[in-house]
């Protein structure tokens, strides 16, 4: 009897550990290019300091990037980005919170490229919007990398682009996110 109790408890414990399996990363990379002509990169910016969490059992994901970690080629653009457009002192982070759809934990155990998707909410500049997009998962050895393109319309997030600059920018800015998790 005791052995059975023990076995049940042990299995709860193991299951509990599995259940609580979360991966964290600080190496998230986000790149965006708001140029209308995407071959031009003069307004492009990137951040190498995005953090993310993946909770395997529930397929939940969360992503956070501090606005001030985005760097531009032109320092003046970076200043405008923080001071005028995104008001980074007021709204310091951009976040995504959602679920992976079609994701199973078996994917992490086997090398390969998997096409899944994600649904959730993007928060940017104080505005939260529903969002869904395809996600590519690449598992290679001990690294699982998620790729996703967030298409963001500035006006959806109350970001005012001055009339002089507008013609040079695309209506929808693609943000490429590359989020690698180290599996252990």
């Amino acid at each position: 009897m005791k052995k059975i109790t023990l076995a049940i408890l042990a299995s709860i414990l193991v299951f509990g550990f599995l259940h609580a399996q979360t991966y964290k990363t600080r190496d998230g990379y986000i790149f965006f290019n708001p140029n209308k002509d995407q071959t031009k990169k003069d307004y492009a910016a990137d951040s190498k300091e995005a953090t993310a969490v993946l909770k395997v059992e529930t397929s939940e994901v969360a992503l956070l990037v501090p606005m001030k970690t985005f760097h531009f080629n032109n320092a003046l653009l970076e200043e405008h980005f923080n001071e005028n457009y995104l008001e980074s002192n007021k709204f310091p982070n951009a976040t995504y919170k959602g679920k992976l759809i079609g994701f199973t934990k078996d994917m992490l155990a086997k090398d390969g490229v998997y096409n899944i998707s994600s649904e959730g909410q993007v928060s940017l500049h104080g505005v939260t919007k529903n969002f869904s997009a395809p996600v590519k998962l690449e598992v290679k050895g001990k690294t699982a990398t998620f790729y996703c393109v967030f298409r963001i319309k500035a006006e959806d997030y109350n970001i005012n682009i001055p009339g002089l600059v507008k013609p040079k920018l695309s209506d929808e800015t693609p943000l490429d996110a590359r989020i690698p998790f180290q599996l252990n």
Partner: protein
Amino acid sequence: MKKICLYLMIAAGFTIKAGAQDDLLGDLVKEDAGKVKENFATATFKSTRIINFQSVEMTGKGNLQFMVSHHFPNLWTDGKGLGNLSQFFGFNSGVATTYLSFDYSPKDWMNLGFALTGNSQYETWAKFRLLRQQTGKRTIPVTVDYFALAHIDASEGPSPDDFTWNRFSFLHQLLIARKFNERFSLQLTPSLVHLNYVPFGINNTNNIFTMGLGGRYKLTHKTAVTFEYSHQFNGNKNLLDESASAVNYVPDLVSIGYDWDTGGHIFQFYLSSTTSSQNITQLSANTQDFTKGNFSLGFTINRSYSVKRVVQAH
């Protein structure tokens, strides 16, 4: 055995509890907020100049800035009457002092520049950031820059036969600025002008000390009003020029301005009690007296180019 059971039960309880916490984003936000950060005060001023004088701002690392400025003759000259109107307040007089400069920042804390200041005069400068206003990891209440400039007069006058060395003059400034809030910034600027050559006179001096106060108040994200005041302590008084006539320089310089940031360029329009476009003359040999209403219009246009790529497309 019972003990093991108990331990396992407690442990199982904890893991289940841990599993129930699912505010992943909240954890990230908390973690980010917990990090010790360096919050630098950015954009204390819009431009690398407040109006006439340098601000603590520097062209960004790897960026080249091109600047053009014009100082027109006086808005209104006494005794000229309607002639002032026909010259459209100095704008259309056909005479303006032009200042063209290029500057480049090889480092975050270092800026090097070269300028053509009109009338065969040239300048070159170096600007170093000594302290940055910040909170967080360290708390520093002000940004401090050191600005050093060398000026050469390559014109035929005033003394063509003089030693080359006599044609040089220098400016040293300490720029001490604080951004009080999103809109308001102030800068204190103690300066030393060293002139290798000064005209004869009773009170002439090679070293001229001035103290400047400058500020800006942001009206919108893109516009701001600015002001500048500078006072000369040991001014050039009762000097004689080459033809032995008396020269009286004015110790004070007053300017008010308007900054307009279009996104690509920064325009600065100003009214200033000087018609010179370069700092050494403005500080040591200004002839326009603001108490007599001698103000002149001027403008500056800035444009910066990214020379070195920081962002690589992956």
